[in-house]
């Protein structure tokens, strides 16, 4: 436990103010969303920010709505809000499921959409689901606004493309594909992070399979997914896609499983996800 008494507390009440403070202070002020991750890092002394830029009072960032068939999740929308939102449950049920499988209700009431992406923790559930749905993160700075895919956003362990003057303000999810599944494979408690996460989406005949929690960043291999282009996915094809994912992946090892074990599970779980997403 570290002493927190010297931390400067910045709590803007509007998005414009938040963006201005972010641009002014850059990485010298650590952006605080729900705090479910940052709190652990601070308590364990891994980070000792001199200033915290809290987004907790920025009401504009907490919204969930739909524009032109595109889902817009405010960066401060909690996991629980996404999980329980009626529109999300009806039109993007896989997203409700993915966020709803994170940890416990206590954590989901705190953890946010923006936070989980900006943390870029390899073992979180939502990045793989969002990547399979081809979601884009909106990054805003005084220089303007840009949209990046999940693959562009997350660069490595706890590393993103977010510039020191940028804030992740929103996540935009295109109209849901015909079918999508999220399989969370846990090797320990039900409240644990995944050992292997597989999100798969199938829309307009295109398959997207993303494997999470096995490498620094979510793994999406478009060329392997393209094996399904123009074909009916049968058991043999599902098996082949899964085998190729397992073969190409360079899995990491942690307390949830060794690299070799993860490779075995990827071969199984990708196959199951592809079968599920392609089942009539």
């Amino acid at each position, binding site marked *: *436990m*570290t*002493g*927190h*008494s010297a931390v400067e507390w910045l709590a803007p009440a509007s998005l414009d103010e938040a963006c201005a403070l972010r641009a002014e202070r850059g990485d010298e002020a650590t952006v605080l969303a729900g705090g479910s991750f940052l709190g*652990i890092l601070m*308590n*364990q002394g891994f980070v000792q920010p001199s200033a915290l830029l809290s987004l907790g009072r920025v009401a504009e960032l907490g919204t969930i709505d739909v524009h032109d068939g595109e889902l817009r999740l405010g960066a401060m929308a909690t996991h629980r809000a996404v999980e329980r939102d009626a529109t999300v449950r009806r039109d993007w049920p896989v997203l409700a499921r993915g966020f709803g499988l994170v940890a*416990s209700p206590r954590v989901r009431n705190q953890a946010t959409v923006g936070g989980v992406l900006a943390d870029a923790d390899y073992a979180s559930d939502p990045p793989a689901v969002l990547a399979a749905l081809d979601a884009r993160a909106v990054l805003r700075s005084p220089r303007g606004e840009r949209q990046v895919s999940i693959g562009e956003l997350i660069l490595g362990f706890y590393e993103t493309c977010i510039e020191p003057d940028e804030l992740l303000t929103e996540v935009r999810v295109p109209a849901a594909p015909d079918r999508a599944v999220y399989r969370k*494979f846990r*090797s*320990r*408690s*039900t*409240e*644990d992070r995944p*050992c292997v996460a597989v999100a798969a989406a199938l829309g307009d005949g295109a398959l997207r399979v993303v494997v999470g929690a096995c490498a620094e960043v979510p793994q999406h291999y478009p060329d392997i997914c393209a094996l399904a282009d123009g074909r009916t996915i049968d058991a043999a094809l599902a098996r082949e896609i899964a085998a190729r994912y397992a073969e190409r992946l360079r899995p990491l090892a942690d*307390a949830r*499983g*060794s690299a070799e*074990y993860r490779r*075995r*599970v990827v071969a*199984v*779980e990708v196959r199951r996800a592809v079968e599920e997403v392609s089942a009539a």
Partner: protein
Amino acid sequence: MSAIGIDPRVTGGQRYSVDAERPGMLHAAFVRSPHPHARVRSMDASALGDECVALLPDDVDDLHRYGCQVRDEHVLARVARHVGDIVAAVAAPTREAALAAARQVEVDYEELPAVYDPVDAVAPGAPLLHPQGADSAGEAVSIGVRPLAGTNVCHRFRLVHGDIAAGFAEADVVVQQAFRTPSAAHAPMEPHAAVAEWHDGRLTVWTGTQTPFNLRADLAVAFGIDEERVRIVGAPMGGSFGAKTFVRHEAPLAALARKAGRPVKVVLDRTEEFLTLNRHPSVIRVRLGARRDGTLVAKELDCWVDTGAYADCGPGVATKLGYAGVGPYRIPHVRVDSLAIYTNLPPNGAYRGYGAMQSIWASERTMDVLADRLGMSPLELRRANLLREGDVFATGEVMHDVQFERCLQAAADAVGYEEDRRGKGLCVLLKGMQTPSRAAIAVERTAVGYVIRTAACEMGQGMRRSLQLMGARMLACEPGQVEVPPPDTDVSPFDTRTTSSRTTHMMGRALEEAVRDLRSGDGERGYGEVRNEGGLDPDTGQGIASTHWHQGAAAAHVAVDEETGRLSIEHVHGVAYAGRVVNREGAELQNEGSMIMGLGTALFEAIEFADGQVANANLSDYNVPAIGDLPRRFTHEIVEREGAEVHGLGETVLPPVPAAIGNALYSLGIAVHELPISPERVLAAVDARAAAA
């Protein structure tokens, strides 16, 4: 209970040791070794401000070594023997200031070679943790300790029953297998916390502890003062499970308060909890022989029990682990060799079950291996060999009020074991209670009812409620009229400690005597005391292990995803023998709590170490069971017998859960020998089965 009947634990009204405050109090933080084994060369606290008080090695030169079973602990470690060993302490006006000051104490270490595995630690040439360890054995208080000079073995427990060589010569079938269990965290919600204060050469410590009188005795030893000059005031605990036993943070805290001349408080954080006291890792090798008809004839157990950097109660744990591993069976020839071994891990101590889980896992898994080799039902094999009324156990004790078969059959029936045993497993166990021990209690009449003075400790197990219920029945009043204040060694009569599920059993009997005394006297006050005598000879394992036995069983039904090794637990059923139930709701909650801890132990709880550093010292990386981890069916029962005495049951159905699940897997040909039963281990066992086929 408050006037409107709402439990103060729910309203926030309950005061714990983390809430203790004294006027003028300072806050403490400990300086802990970052190295698993290192000599402190020098220390510099000159950077600390005037408002801080530092407790440095020279400040404790006049203090003595202490320890509940081996006096091998120092108030501050001049040689740090584990990561987190306390080498200095700092007091400051606020906790934040103390934590900041502790980081400013500069310590120069000379690193020493270290060892982290109990088998490695007894190999020739292993680094020695306590080169003079054997010297202190004579000072040990509560049990006969048998250190092996010049080694890391702080205690060797042996049990010899019959003639082991002759026994194996009689066997038609012999199976042998080694098993492993990892370290685990008690993970109570409330961390260790205490306030220490000196006044006129008298030390008072407010702390959450299961062992107030042991704490008093050990602190008196450390400070070289009479026990009467130490007062321990216990607070109800927000969980303990064995973690808050004997001297932990209290010794350096008391020394810091002495130096500061003011009361000092400490509250450990979660990371420190993982460095304070954990469960003993073990390696257990079982050899079991039977005749072709399934009659057991010989059993050998070799146990390597990792007690960490300090013995703590490791000798006792190695002893109990040793005899519990014999199991509730008639076996004419038995040899047990159980070693409590120092390693450079944080100390390991009492953990719900006190070593029983480790050896029951090994020994009950081996029973199913034997049944398989004999082509018998594991239930039949057990039934044919169970101890029955009047049988003699391997310790020489004659068994009474024997209920093993009832417990085992109830477990088997709950999962339909005899209809179809695929995917199902059983475990039956015997577990001892702290012996010898003494419990005393006083009852006094008050304006509204009675007050029961006892050193028994409330840690969520329902001790107060049980005493209120028993007291109300004996005194013919309402439970709400019976007050049970927390222990205070200045006013509470002596009690050995609140461990080993002994409180309801021992205190219930003492209370009967106290009420009898009150009735036969002036009706104003009564005193009752019970003793159970006994103990085992550490060299032969003969004597009285336990004056009453905890008896229980469990059954599990599992399904396996054989492609990933992931288990789904369809059903777990636990059975505990209670004799007579005192507090039914409390007894049921104890069973459920024990089984949930057993599930965590079985499926995923393990402290991960990397070169002596705890790699998962938080409750995100270390998983404890969540509500979603409960089996589809999660049931238990309490076996009673008309006219029986009250038996303890606070731990009984934790130890059988891992073995029942392991045996359920084994019924499918999946043999896992190491806890936890992770999907990865299951998949490796599925591969091994395929390779053998």
